[in-house]
C-alpha cells in the first residue's frame, strides 16, 4: 500500500448556522441525510427547540443593525452572496445532485436560477420603497409620506423539494428589505442549505441576519410560531400540510404574527415571484408633519 491510498477521507460535519457561527445542535442530536437514492451522505444537526430559541435571539440582535443599513448596502451584500455562490459552483452542483437527484446539467441550471434570483432581489433593495411607498395628498397643510419598513424577525419554513432555488426564493425577499430570518431548511435535503450558510458566512452578511436550522419543520416550527419575539412566519415549506399549517397559524395569532400561508403544493420556483414575497413582510409606516413657516 502506498502512502496515498492509506489516506482516510476527512468527512464534513454539517452543523447549524446561528448568529454567524456554526454550532452543533444544543440537543446533541443529528440525523442521517441520504441522497436521492437513499445512500448515506452525511449526518446533519437536528435542530431543537432551544436551537430555535437561540436563532431567534441572534436574529433579533441582528435586526437593528441590518435594518439600519442603507438599502444600497444591503443590495451590495445580496449581490455579494451571488458572487460567492458562483465561486462555489462545484460544491453547490454536487449538493444538488445528491439532494435532489438532478443531473449535472439540471443541477447547474438550478444553481443558475438561485444565483439569478439573488441578483434579482439584490436590485430590489433600493427600489421596493419607491414601488410600494408613496406620498399622500392629505386635505390639509401636512407632509405625509408612507414608506415600507421591515417587519422584524421572520421565521421561514423553506421548501422541502427545491432545496436551493426554493430556499433562496424564500430567504432573499425576507432579508433584502431589512428583516432578519430564522430558516428551517428542507428536512430531507438540507445540504444545499448548509453550503448556502457557508456562503453567507463569507459574504459580508452580518451574523444573525440569516440563521439556518436543519431538521424537522414539524418539530421546530411550532416553537417559532408560538415565539413571542418572532414577528412573522412564512409557511411555504409545509405546503400541503393543512393540519400543521392550521396549528401554526393558530399559534402565530398569540402575538399576531404576519403569516404567509402555506400553498397547497410547492410552487414552481422558476416563475417570476412578483413582489408579494417581499411585501408580505413589510409594514407601512406613515409619517405626518405640518408644513408651516
Amino acid at each position, binding site marked *: 500500500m502506498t502512502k496515498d491510498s492509506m489516506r482516510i477521507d476527512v468527512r464534513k460535519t454539517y452543523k447549524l448556522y446561528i448568529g454567524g457561527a456554526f454550532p452543533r445542535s444544543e440537543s446533541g442530536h443529528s440525523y442521517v441525510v441520504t441522497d436521492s437514492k437513499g445512500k448515506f451522505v452525511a449526518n446533519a444537526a437536528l435542530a431543537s427547540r432551544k436551537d430555535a430559541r437561540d436563532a431567534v435571539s441572534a436574529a433579533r440582535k441582528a435586526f437593528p443593525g441590518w435594518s439600519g443599513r442603507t438599502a444600497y448596502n444591503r443590495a451590495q451584500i445580496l449581490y455579494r452572496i451571488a458572487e460567492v455562490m458562483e465561486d462555489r459552483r462545484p460544491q453547490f452542483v454536487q449538493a444538488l445532485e445528491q439532494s435532489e437527484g438532478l443531473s449535472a446539467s439540471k443541477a447547474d441550471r438550478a444553481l443558475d436560477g438561485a444565483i439569478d434570483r439573488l441578483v434579482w432581489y439584490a436590485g430590489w433593495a433600493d427600489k421596493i420603497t419607491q414601488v410600494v411607498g408613496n406620498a399622500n395628498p392629505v386635505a*390639509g*397643510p401636512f407632509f405625509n409620506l408612507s414608506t415600507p419598513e421591515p417587519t422584524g424577525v421572520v421565521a421561514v419554513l423553506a421548501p422541502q423539494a427545491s432545496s436551493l432555488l426554493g430556499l433562496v426564493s424564500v430567504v432573499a425577499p425576507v432579508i433584502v428589505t431589512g428583516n432578519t430570518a430564522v430558516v428551517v431548511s428542507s428536512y430531507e435535503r438540507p445540504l444545499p442549505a448548509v453550503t448556502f450558510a457557508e456562503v453567507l458566512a463569507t459574504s459580508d452578511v452580518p451574523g444573525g441576519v440569516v440563521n439556518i436550522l436543519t431538521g424537522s419543520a414539524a418539530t421546530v416550527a411550532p416553537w417559532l410560531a408560538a415565539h413571542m419575539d418572532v414577528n412573522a412566519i412564512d409557511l411555504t415549506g409545509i405546503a400541503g400540510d393543512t393540519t400543521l399549517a392550521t396549528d401554526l397559524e393558530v399559534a402565530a395569532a398569540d402575538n399576531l404574527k404576519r403569516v404567509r400561508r402555506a400553498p397547497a403544493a410547492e410552487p414552481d420556483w422558476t416563475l417570476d415571484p412578483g413582489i408579494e414575497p417581499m411585501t408580505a413582510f413589510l409594514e407601512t409606516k406613515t409619517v405626518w408633519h405640518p408644513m*408651516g*413657516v
Partner: protein
Amino acid sequence: MTSSSTLLDPAFDDVTRSEASLRRFLHGLPGVDQVGAEARAASLGTRSIKTSAKAFALDLAIRMVDLTTLEGQDTPGKVRALASKAMRPDPADPTCPQVAAVCVYPDMVATARQTLGDSGVHVAAVATAFPSGRAALDIKLADTRDAVEAGAHEIDMVIDRGAFLAGHYLQVFEEIVAVREACRRENGESAHLKVIFETGELQTYDNVRRASWLAMMAGAHFIKTSTGKVQPAATPPVTMIMLEAVRDFREQTGTMIGVKPAGGIRTAKDAIKYLVMVNEVAGPDWLDPDWFRFGASTLLNDLLMQRTKMTTGRYSGPDYFTLD
C-alpha cells in the same frame, strides 16, 4: 449698553445687557408651529356663544373698543363725531356702555379730549412716525411727547420692523424704553404705552412671540398686533400667540400686560371669537378693557346691531346706527 430705566423688571437685566444676550434669549423662546397654532385658534373659533353669554360678550366687546380713525382726511369735525359716538355708541339705548378709547393721530388729541371731557373714554394717539416708523429716534420721541402733552392717555407706538428683521433687537428694545420714558408727564404719571408690531410684516409666529417678549421686557403696557395699514392685520392666531406671551410673562414676572388686536375685526361674531380666545388662552383676568382692546372702526356698529337684536329679538339694519 445696560438700560438704566427704573421702569424695567430687573429680572431681565442679564437678558438685555447686550445684543448677543438678548438675541440668545429671544431665539431661545419655544418655537411656534404654524399649523398647530392656526388649528388651535380655529378650534376656539367654533365655540358657540349664545343668550346670556352673548349679551355679556357684546357689552364687554363694546367696552373694549378703541374707536379708531387714522386717515389723512381726518378733520376736527370727524374726530368730534367719533368722540361723541364713543361716549354714546347707541343714542337710543342709555344702557349701552361707552367704548374704551378713541384712537387718533397726535394732532387730533386735543380735539378728542375736548369732546370727551371727563367721560372716562380715553384718548389714544398713534405716535413714533406711525404707521411705518421710519424716522429718526428724536422725531419719534418728539411725536410722542407732543401727543402726551396734548393729553393723550395712551400712546400706540410702532416698532422699527426693519431693525427687528435685521436682528437689531437691542435697538428696538431701547427705542421702546425711550418712548416709554417720553410717555411720562410732569406730574409723574405716565401715558400707557401700547407697542405695535405690525405682525403682517413680521410674518412668522416665532417673530410675533419674540417681539412680544421684547416689548414686554422693555416696559410696554400693551402689545398690539397692527397699524391697520398693512395686510394681514390682526388675525386670531397672531392674537393667540400674543395672549400666550402675556400669560407666560405674568407667570414669570407677576406683571400683567394687555393685548390689542387691531385691524380686520369687523363683526361681532369675530369679536366674540377673540373674547373666547382671551378667556381660554390668557384667562378671565384679561376680560377687561384694562387688559384687552379691539382697535377698530366698523366693528362697533356690528356690535351695536347684534346688541339690539339681543334686546329687541329682531334683526336690525345699518340705517338704525350712526355712521361717523
